[in-house]
């Protein structure tokens, strides 16, 4: 069992128009209060899941690079005191590539962070403007330099399939990003999520998202280019040199337990799904009232857990081990997947299977959601 801890820092300087994560813009954050509250939330989880040394910690957000390094340090110290750290622990922090934040990288590294995931998003200033980013390309490349000198491992995020983006443009941008030599890249297709400013823009006709067919072409192109560069996809949108995958994210995808603290954080702990209050103020209030930020703690039955395991596992190139899942959840393989359809889509080249393993082939990754609807048995979802 992996032992993974997720810490959510919900604040941003500005909300990006594509982002539907739990992020908020606030003035005058009381860092002392936040430190005490996050520590309390952590201690609460530890009391329920003292599972041995942690193998990964992930600071997500929001913009966790806005956290004072001292706060990061004190949270890490407490985590180590409570659970202990595995010798090879991976400690990732999501960072914005601005000059201000780059100035903190050394201190964050000293506090214990050994991997950053840098939100470059684009290597084109105009595109950065469209995406509502506060940094320029030059600024972000300078931050990348600092990051590469401060941390053992660096990953970069890019957003593609932007409106009007051509295959040539994307190819050039991606090749350039690969040239920076990071061992991990997260390459996300722009998705217009409900409840974002982009969703309103699209509805108002401010811009038109890239159509599905060209977007699918870019996705395929991405697979080719990264594979050729030695950074093949390990998951739908994540590419890594062998062994350089994010261990923390693998925990989600392999559906092992993870603890989540901070506003809106999700967790899977001992057969329970946990969720925390999303709004920062409500979360703080919950900590003050009940000593933890939980808004929901719900036991998952075997079917639910199995469907989650399949949904997450099939995002991975390595696929899932059906026998292992069957043993783990006490459900027959036939209860979990629709054999007939699985075979049909395998014959069309969307899926592969080898012994007890089932996985999504390259051709299928871009339509994974539709495939899941076919493969995961109706019984599992209905119950």
């Amino acid at each position, binding site marked *: 069992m992996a032992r993974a801890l997720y810490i959510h820092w919900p604040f941003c300087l500005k909300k990006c128009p594509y982002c539907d994560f739990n992020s908020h813009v606030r003035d005058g954050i009381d860092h002392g209060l936040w430190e005490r509250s996050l520590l309390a939330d952590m201690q609460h989880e530890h009391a329920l899941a003292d599972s041995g040394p942690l193998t990964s910690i992930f600071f997500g957000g929001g913009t966790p690079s806005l956290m004072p390094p001292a706060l990061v340090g004190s949270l890490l110290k407490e985590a180590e005191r409570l659970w202990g750290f595995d010798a090879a622990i991976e400690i990732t922090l999501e960072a914005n590539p601005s000059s201000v934040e780059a100035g903190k990288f050394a201190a964050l590294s000293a506090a214990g962070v050994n991997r950053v995931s840098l939100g470059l998003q684009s290597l084109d200033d105009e595109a950065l403007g469209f995406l509502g980013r506060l940094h320029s390309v030059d600024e972000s490349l300078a931050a990348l330099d600092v990051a590469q000198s401060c941390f053992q491992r660096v990953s970069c995020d890019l957003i593609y399939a932007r409106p009007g983006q051509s295959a040539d443009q994307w190819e050039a941008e991606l090749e350039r990003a690969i040239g920076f030599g990071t061992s991990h890249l997260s390459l996300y*297709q722009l*998705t217009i999520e409900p409840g974002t400013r982009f969703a309103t823009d699209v509805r108002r006709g401010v811009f038109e998202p890239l159509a599905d067919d060209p977007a699918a072409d870019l996705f395929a192109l991405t697979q080719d280019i990264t594979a050729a560069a030695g950074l093949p996809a390990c998951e739908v949108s994540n590419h890594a040199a062998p062994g350089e995958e994010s261990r923390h994210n693998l925990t989600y995808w392999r559906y092992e337990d993870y603890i989540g603290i901070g506003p809106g954080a999700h967790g899977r702990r001992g057969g329970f799904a946990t969720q925390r209050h999303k709004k920062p103020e409500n979360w703080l209030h919950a900590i003050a009232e009940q000593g933890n930020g939980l808004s929901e703690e719900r036991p998952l039955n075997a079917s639910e857990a199995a469907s989650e395991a399949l949904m997450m596992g099939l995002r991975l190139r390595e696929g899932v081990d059906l026998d292992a899942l069957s043993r783990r959840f006490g459900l027959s393989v036939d209860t979990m997947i629709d054999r007939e359809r699985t075979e049909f889509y395998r014959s069309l080249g*969307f899926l592969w299977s080898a012994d007890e393993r089932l996985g999504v082939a390259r051709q299928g990754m*871009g339509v994974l*959601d539709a495939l899941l609807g076919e493969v995961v048995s*109706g019984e599992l979802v209905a119950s």
Partner: protein
Amino acid sequence: MTDLSKIRNFSIIAHIDHGKSTLADRLIQHCGGLTEREMSEQVLDNMDIEKERGITIKAQTVRLAYTARDGETYELNLMDTPGHVDFAYEVSRSLAACEGALLVVDAAQGVEAQTLANVYQSIEHDHEIVPVINKIDLPAAEPEQVRMEIEEIIGLDASEAVLTSAKSGIGIEEVLEAVVAKIPPPKGDRDAPLKAMLVDSWYDPYLGVVILVRVIDGVLRKGLSVKFMQGGTQHLVDRVGCFTPKRTDLADIGPGEIGFITAQIKEVEQARVGDTITTVKNGATQALAGYKEVQPVVFCGLFPTDAADFEKLRESIGKLRLNDASFSFEMESSAALGFGFRCGFLGLLHLEIIQERLSREYDLDLITTAPSVVYRISLGHTKNEDAKVIELHNPADYPDPSRIVEIEEPWIKATIYTPDEYLGSILKLCQDRRGIQTDLTYVGGRAQVTYELPLNEVVFDFYDRLKSISRGYASFDYEQIGLRPGDLVKMNIMVNNEPVDALSLIVHRNVAEDRGRGMCERLKDLIPRHLFKIPIQAAIGGKIIARETIAALRKDVTAKCYGGDITRKKKLLEKQKKGKARMREYGNVSIPQEAFIAALRMGEE
């Protein structure tokens, strides 16, 4: 029991929406049948579906006590009838129970197709007809013009037509006075053996089977042993009453009166409309004339979306039929849709209503297959079988074409009324539907055109199209004129190379390609993209006559599954599965259930 001379029985007849039910409201109110508080708009339209659509589907009978200007109190039995052509049968039964009719004509619309059809029926019953020109409050009302139309087109004396606004309550007393003065009282002999006409029957959850009767001779009272002369069954009358419109128990129903009885009848089947009720002892020897049997003209398959609901569907159809004897059903099975029923209806609105009532009142999700008419097919002999003639209700049962000697299809005579300006488009519509024009006349600014049309061209969306090209102004009535041979073929629709039996239909060879292309195009829009490309083809025998392709789905993936938030993803999957449950699988293609009907809508031609 009321003295014959004080009884008036009348139906309210009109074209659809001319205000029959609203007039009935006012008459009820005027006679104090319901208080202001108990009143609602079109109070007699008591089914949800009637209220929602604002149309009457089932005829309703109400007994009112009216104290006339002559100081006498009269018993009025009023029958509100539906205006839509599909329910003409309801009208004919009501007319048979009355001595007269109020003919309501909308002062802005004038005489329309169903006005005439209903008047003619009423005249056949030797009725006294009282013209009522309604909606005179409308700015577009032209009562004088309408009065002229009634005289010219129908040939009724309209000089004494009552001008009303049912909506604002104008002319209501005049209508009641006209009823008393003009409609003759019924005849009958209370001492003769009992003879009562079974006008209608329905199932009431509290009372069981309720029977609406019109007594001709004799007296019906509680405790009487009666028999149904055609049905041959005997029953003990345990309740006698009328609707005012509230259910009111009575001591008896005498000659000339209309009322209801219950008699512990278990099945509506035993109480067939048109039957004659008499006493077991000293009963009448000769039955009344009865009604013409209605023949369903449109057939379609009804299948449960969820195969597990078949039993529920069977039960629900059975129950629904208790209240509507005019539709028929028999079990049917389809390769792809599983078990269901092939049902016969009086028309398309009737079909739609039954389907809607099933899904609403019985909470069933249904797939409806393409409506079809009844074909007569002459088959030649084979080595093992003699030549024979079969009736085809279902395209899926289409016989081996090589054996077919001749196919005949039902034709109708359609009468269409329309303002001049729409005539051109209407003629084109009829022409496209293989129509043969037989008559065209003008009255004022309106045209009356008569066409002979194959019913299978009308059965689907003819009426909708007619309404839409005439902005709702054209009206339409039809009667069946028998079978005629036609060059008809079965067209199969293949989705991903598999024939979809529920989409196959019988078409005339000349229009097959057109229809096939239209259906393929519509299916292309109706079937969502799949992970693989899907050919859609229309074929006659082995010959493909139209083809479309649905491109494969290429993008459908959640790019970022953030921070272990699986719950949201799971909701997506649940929604996807739910959507799938509403579709039907053909080969590996999921077809949304709406597609089965929508594919046939011929749209803007």
